[in-house]
């Protein structure tokens, strides 16, 4: 009887896992990735998702199984068997989650480290947040000292952002690039992004910063290197202002 129960439970768990996997894969949960850092973040995301599906399938199938199999008949006033615990089982469900979260932690730490390195010669841009607008100042290259209201980036080159705030705390985020960093008044922060796809992506403020918070948006425009260089040169000579 016991063995058959466990086989039924395992079949149920596989079915739940299959259904959950379908939901995870068929719905586009993550926005398109346009950055090297986002790709690495997505890797951790899918590891966590795999583990989450396994745990979810086990727990939900156990609940469903118990609900169906161990339902008491209305006239049944008896008690269940007095099982107080089982040491092996308790060790297993302490040890297995420990191993799983350790795996997530290790991969996360590696990705965190990789996502903070900007290589030898990054483009450097200062991001300045005020209530309720963004501005971007180029700190090296032909567009040095140029300040514009949108963030123009060259494809494929690491960019080191220096994020500052002039008033309250804001937060810089481009969902397609994945990286996010609070702008803290008085404490400049750095953030590394490496665009891998050309296009225009939203820059949003994610830290509640007052009445204009919802509208504090800008754009990140990723350009092919040639086009970016042309723009930077013209901007550096006082040509382009955005």
């Amino acid at each position, binding site marked *: 009887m016991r063995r058959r129960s466990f086989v039924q439970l395992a079949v149920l768990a596989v079915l739940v896992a299959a259904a959950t996997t379908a939901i995870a894969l068929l719905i586009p949960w993550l926005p398109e990735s346009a950055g090297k850092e986002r790709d690495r973040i997505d890797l951790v995301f899918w590891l966590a998702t795999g583990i989450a599906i396994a745990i979810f399938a086990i*727990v939900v199938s156990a609940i469903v199984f118990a609900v169906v199999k161990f339902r008491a008949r209305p006239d049944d006033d008896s008690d269940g068997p*007095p*099982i*107080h615990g089982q040491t092996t089982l308790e060790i297993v469900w302490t040890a297995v989650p420990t191993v799983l979260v350790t795996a997530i932690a290790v991969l996360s730490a590696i990705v965190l480290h990789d996502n903070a390195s900007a290589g030898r010669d990054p483009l450097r841009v200062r991001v300045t947040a005020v209530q309720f607008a963004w501005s971007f100042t180029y700190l090296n290259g032909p567009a040095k000292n140029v300040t514009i209201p949108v963030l123009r980036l060259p494809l494929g080159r690491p960019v080191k952002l220096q994020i500052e705030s002039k008033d309250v705390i804001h937060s810089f985020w481009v969902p397609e690039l994945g990286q996010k*960093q609070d702008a803290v008044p008085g404490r400049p922060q750095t953030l590394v992004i490496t665009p891998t796809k050309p296009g225009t992506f939203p820059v949003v403020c994610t830290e509640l910063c007052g009445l204009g918070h919802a509208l504090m948006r800008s754009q990140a425009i990723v350009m092919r290197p040639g086009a970016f260089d042309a723009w930077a040169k013209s901007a550096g000579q006082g040509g382009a202002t955005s």
Partner: protein
Amino acid sequence: MSKVTVEHEVQAAPPRLPGRGPRVLLSPWFRLVWTIPLFFGIGAGIVSLVRWLEGWHPIWQGSVQTTVALVTIPFGFLVGIGAFDYWLAYAIGQPTRPEDHSSHGARSWRDYLRVNTDHKVIGIQYIAANIFFLIAGGLLAMLFRAELAEPGMQYVSTQTFNGLVSVHAALMIFLVIVPVFAGIGNYVIPLMIGAPDMAFPRLNALSFWLLPVAGIMMLASFLVPGGAFATGWTSYAPLASHQPLGQVFFNMGVQWAGASSIMTALNFLVTIITMRAPGMTFWRMPLLVWANFTTSTLVVLATPFIAGSQFFVMFDRIMHTNFFEPDAGGYVLGYQHIFWFYSHPAVYIMMLPGFGIISEVISTFARKPIFGYRLMALSLVAILVLGFSVWAHHMFVAGMAPWLRVPMMVTSLLIAVPTGIKIFSWLATLWEGRIRFTTPMLFALGFIANFLIGGLSGVYLGSVPIDIHVSDTYFVVAHIHYVLFGGSLLTVFAGLYYWFPKMTGRMYNERLGKIHFWITIVAMNLTFFPMHWLGLQGMPRRVADYQDRFADLNLAISISSFVLGASIVLFLYNIITSWARGPKADGNPWRARSIEWQVSSPPPIFNFDEIPQVVGGPYEYGVEGARHAVFSGNGAVRLEDAEKARR
């Protein structure tokens, strides 16, 4: 066994304050007519006097006087309703007796509206007040969900929107989830451990009456110039230091709610440590008692930190201190460190008592002992200890010292282990049980599944790289609602249905209860699950407006949130009509083992005519002849008769 009886003198004249004026102006509540103006005058007067002496003009600066009045008016309220009568009478030399039970117990509904020292009355006062604030907070959510149904601004300004979001969260956290467990615990814990009341009944009454003060203060912030506080329930400095006056109503509201929490927690600790019935060792305590014990420890250790953080913000504002002012050398991130040093443990303050409730409900309705009882208790302690080492996971993108991130990630992820132990142990308790699908059991099972989703999304948020992507987005909104609604609030419903017969002496309507359960579960998931997608895709939290591409999903979420909000009407209808004319419940309708079920429903005014003797564990279902507690004299006979009659 010797017969132990407990005698209480129920009626005694309440201590009276001396006075010559018309009596009615001295009786509680009527006194409010002059105590509130008096204490407002004291607060405003001190400020005006200082301003006059210092030569500051204008002397009457409404926002400053109001700030100090928020400290004094609550005292006027407490004096007015009589919360200090006993102590004041003692202080001015009137005759008092320590064993004064004149304000104990409820004989009519009016007794629920006055300062009462009976833990059972206080428990119900708490729960009623919490349900009131649940509805208020829910209505605020309906308002901003209406605004969010379409992109663009339709009904409110962005500042008002931020205010709605902030007051919603503050009420739900500080006035609903945190205190409702104190309310349920107040009613149940003394009965569960075989005590006649809480250790400090008058302090208990005072703790309760601080709550309406805090809640009304937060709601009243909508009425002041500039509108309600609008910086989220987290109220980060330096934004919060430079907001309109409404912000102070949050800073001070948190103080009153926090003081209430701390007093109740101390009361629980002393009660649980010193007032357990003979024979009830720690390893014989029901898990709800364990949960309240660990929660109370958390409250006492952590709550002073949020009190400090809010005072600092207020000082920066009104006294021009520079705790968090970057231009004057303040440490901006200091606010977040102090705030989260409370507010992360607060997550467990809002969850551990729920774990306790679920253990009681599942064991009773599966008719099985809790699987791995000791590990269940120890995992509560593990969460308590680990809970203090994870606060900075709220700050992975805040710009704190980078080296802090990995250690905080490891401790945060490790909390999944004791939490997992609890979930697996509940499942093992269900295994081969004789499961009865009563409403509390449905809520308990619904809790496991939904809390699991919240727990798993918590693992995502614990991992630094994923958190960097989803921090401050709707993913976090989804997570917090799966944990606080799918987690805490479902356990509250489970607990309220479970102990309803005990509290009222009547049965609730099972059919309505089940309908309430199904509507809640379906609407909750339709409301909160899509938020994961919104967050991952790029919708930040706390925004009054959003990109057009999120419009359809937000409309769907708004519609299901209205259904979710409306479902509370079923619950209210059920408990009100059942309390008025539901079928009578006997002492132990669930055939449960713990002590609160071995007395009548509702229990006698001092809980026990005889002190119970605890002789075994609380969940010995299926063990031949096992008992949790026996009563020395007639009680033991009564218990056996009851068992026999049932078989």
